[in-house]
């Protein structure tokens, strides 16, 4: 059985994912490209006598290494040297889509050209002469409509025999003199560059390609090479002044001619009023654009959390039933109490707390998937870019931030919709300040105890404080870490399309399984550690456990904030695992049963909290502000670690806590003076 490796390439929004799913079915694997957080999707296509690994390259417009996605794609083609490339193009927009093909053919890669979305082309009464196209380019051309399965078998057949396909000797004619200079330089590069096609290398050297320049500069004969390249440049400069854009112009020029020759259009496209423009008359309308966007975000938020909450409850119930059931069984077979507690309260409840995130993550990805696949996401960025730009963020940062009001974890995961790493990081760093749903019970408890008259205002203030701090920190980080970089908003606004159910389901499945595997391990470890600290030494009062002892050690830190007691410290420490635990911890500290804590809607607890005298009004306010701002839960840290690595996850944990401390201290110190 022969083994093949194929790369799948193409512009964004051309149905590449759909082709990938049709080719590989359930045989998929998602990882990261080495060294970067860009996702690498791989799948297997197994036929009777071949096994093909299909690597899905990021959606790109060109193989020039100007963006990280472009760089990854080009490096893959050059360094991993796949047996061939399947290039998916939007057949209804060949003029732009075929540019990348010109680059691919210049790289001398065996290429199969897939004209996708032929249904649209036929509807618009455009005819494409695929036979002629194939003859001119000397590569196989397949008409396809992947969303309906058309052409998929043909692509599979062609992939199977790609090892015997000839490399196309198609060349763009750059004009006699330029071609002469290129040939001469290519000849000079022969045997000097192993991995690269010498003609391609020559063209790139003439184009000032930064990476090719870097390769030349470390070559032992770099001086002679540079001299030779300069000579060729001077030769070309006699006829064309801007050499670095000359090759791009020529390629587009050629594509333009090719499209004219191979397509026949019976309709005047300029007069066409399509559905997309009608929809956009509302969605990006100057007056309605922002209100509609805000409404859609609100609807997304409601959809995810209103539908998700009962599901979370169901999962939590199942888990606790399962935990006590397992606990009983383990007890009855005579396992020591401590082991039973570890398995039932530590591990099963820990796993359960991971699982309980799944409904909202699944629903969130359904919502994001619909927004993305329909084409609205680009409009959202278009409408919001100005505001977000002023705040130091990117237009697309808005979505993760809104999601963050529900839960930081899916918010962090939603930063994937941002292309530039800098924008992703910046958004992730300030995301924890968006007051998530799990913090609400803390506000509820404290407002019931200390601020009964204006509880609504206090809770609202938390949201506002969170946003203000996020904006301030975004500005600070931008000027500290990412000063020079302004990522441009060169963004296609693709036609609106109805999302494919199958693609959405794939997306949800991947996100959830990734979350369980990666973030799950971090949360589980954290829960077990806290269980350990809260249980040992065995059989002592709450006040004597390691957790309480640790609380006493940290307590002095909170003295300037007015809550330097071990109870508050323990509650905050447990909140590091999950903010939901904070209220429960206060309950345990005051020696209340679980029913008491839950049943009377915190009234008993809030009464006890008030009477305990460990907070006054000012330090109580400081405490909830601290709860809002300090290190997000384990799950969120786990998600940040997965997206950006340990360093950023730890940095986020520490700096948010520092900000929280400063805020709480300021509130207490200034507040005490005023009141």
């Amino acid at each position: 059985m022969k083994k093949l490796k194929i790369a799948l390439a193409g512009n964004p929004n051309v149905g590449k994912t759909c082709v990938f799913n049709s080719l590989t079915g359930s045989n998929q694997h998602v990882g990261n490209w080495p060294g970067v957080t860009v996702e690498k999707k791989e799948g297997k296509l197994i036929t009777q006598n071949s096994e093909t690994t299909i690597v899905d390259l990021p959606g790109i417009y060109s193989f020039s290494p100007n963006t990280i996605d472009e760089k990854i794609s080009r490096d893959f083609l050059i360094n991993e040297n796949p047996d061939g490339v399947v290039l998916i193009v939007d057949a209804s927009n060949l003029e732009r889509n075929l540019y990348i093909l010109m680059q691919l053919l210049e790289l001398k890669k065996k290429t199969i050209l897939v004209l996708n979305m032929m249904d649209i082309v036929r509807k618009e009464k455009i005819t494409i002469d695929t036979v002629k196209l194939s003859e001119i380019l000397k590569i196989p051309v397949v008409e396809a409509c992947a969303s309906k399965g058309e052409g998929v078998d043909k692509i599979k057949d062609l992939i199977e025999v790609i090892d015997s396909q000839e490399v196309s000797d198609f060349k763009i004619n750059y004009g006699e003199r330029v071609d002469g200079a290129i040939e001469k330089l290519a000849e000079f590069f022969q045997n000097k560059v192993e991995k690269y096609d010498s003609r391609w290398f020559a063209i790139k050297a003439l184009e000032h390609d930064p990476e090719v320049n870097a390769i030349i500069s470390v070559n032992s004969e770099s001086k002679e090479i540079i001299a030779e390249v300069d000579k060729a440049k001077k030769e070309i400069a006699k006829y064309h002044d801007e050499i670095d854009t000359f090759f791009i112009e020529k390629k587009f020029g050629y594509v333009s001619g090719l499209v004219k020759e191979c397509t026949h259009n019976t309709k005047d496209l300029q007069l066409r009023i399509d559905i997309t423009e009608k929809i956009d008359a509302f969605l990006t309308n100057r007056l309605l654009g922002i209100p509609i966007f805000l409404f859609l975000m609100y609807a997304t938020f409601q959809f995810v959390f209103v539908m998700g909450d009962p599901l979370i409850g169901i999962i939590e119930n199942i888990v606790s039933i399962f935990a006590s059931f397992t606990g009983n069984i383990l007890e009855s077979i005579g396992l020591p109490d401590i082991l039973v507690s570890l398995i039932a309260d530590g591990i099963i409840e820990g796993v359960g707390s991971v699982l309980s995130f799944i409904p909202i993550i699944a629903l969130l990805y359904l919502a994001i998937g619909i927004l993305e696949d329909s084409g609205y996401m680009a409009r959202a960025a278009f409408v919001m870019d100005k505001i977000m730009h002023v705040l130091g963020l990117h237009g697309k940062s808005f979505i993760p931030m809104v999601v963050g009001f529900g839960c930081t974890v899916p918010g962090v995961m939603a930063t994937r919709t941002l292309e530039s790493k800098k924008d992703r990081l910046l958004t992730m760093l300030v995301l924890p300040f968006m007051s998530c749903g799990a913090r609400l019970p803390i506000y509820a408890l404290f407002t019931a105890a200390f601020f009964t008259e204006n509880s609504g205002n206090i809770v609202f203030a938390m949201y506002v404080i969170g946003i203000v701090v996020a904006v301030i920190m975004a500005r600070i980080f931008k000027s500290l870490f990412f000063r020079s970089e302004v990522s441009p908003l060169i963004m296609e606004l693709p036609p609106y399309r109805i999302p494919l159910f199958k693609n959405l389901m794939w997306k949800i499945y991947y996100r959830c399984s990734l979350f369980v595997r990666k973030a799950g391990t971090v949360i589980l470890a954290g829960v077990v550690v806290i269980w350990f600290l809260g249980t040992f030494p065995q059989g002592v009062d709450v006040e004597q456990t390691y957790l309480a002892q640790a609380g006493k050690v940290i307590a002095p830190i909170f003295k300037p904030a007015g809550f330097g007691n071990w109870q508050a410290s323990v509650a905050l420490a447990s909140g590091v695992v999950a903010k939901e635990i904070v209220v429960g911890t206060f309950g345990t500290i005051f020696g209340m049963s679980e029913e008491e804590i839950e049943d009377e809607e915190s009234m008993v607890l809030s009464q006890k909290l008030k009477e305990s005298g460990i907070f006054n009004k000012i330090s109580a306010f400081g405490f909830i502000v601290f709860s809002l701002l300090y290190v997000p839960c384990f799950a969120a840290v786990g998600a940040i670690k997965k997206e950006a690595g340990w360093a950023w996850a730890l940095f986020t944990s520490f700096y948010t806590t520092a900000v929280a401390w400063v805020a709480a201290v300021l509130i207490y110190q200034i507040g005490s003076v005023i009141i």
Partner: protein
Amino acid sequence: MNLTELKQGERGKILKITGDKMLKQRLMTMGFTQNETVKVDKFAPLGDPVEYVIKNYHISLRKSEAKFIEVEKVEL
């Protein structure tokens, strides 16, 4: 004149792209090449970015990017 000077609905023929090489290349690979016609389709609600039509597709650019595209107004 540069692209930001065109009003909504107006068209311009691209003469040249200035600015740093990376931005220039990115714009060109998206289809902003010499002699191509660009139409100003729509301004975002706050006036920036701007939606353009080029090569029969829609693209948005910030004004800070579009100002590097030199155009000549095309009368309909």
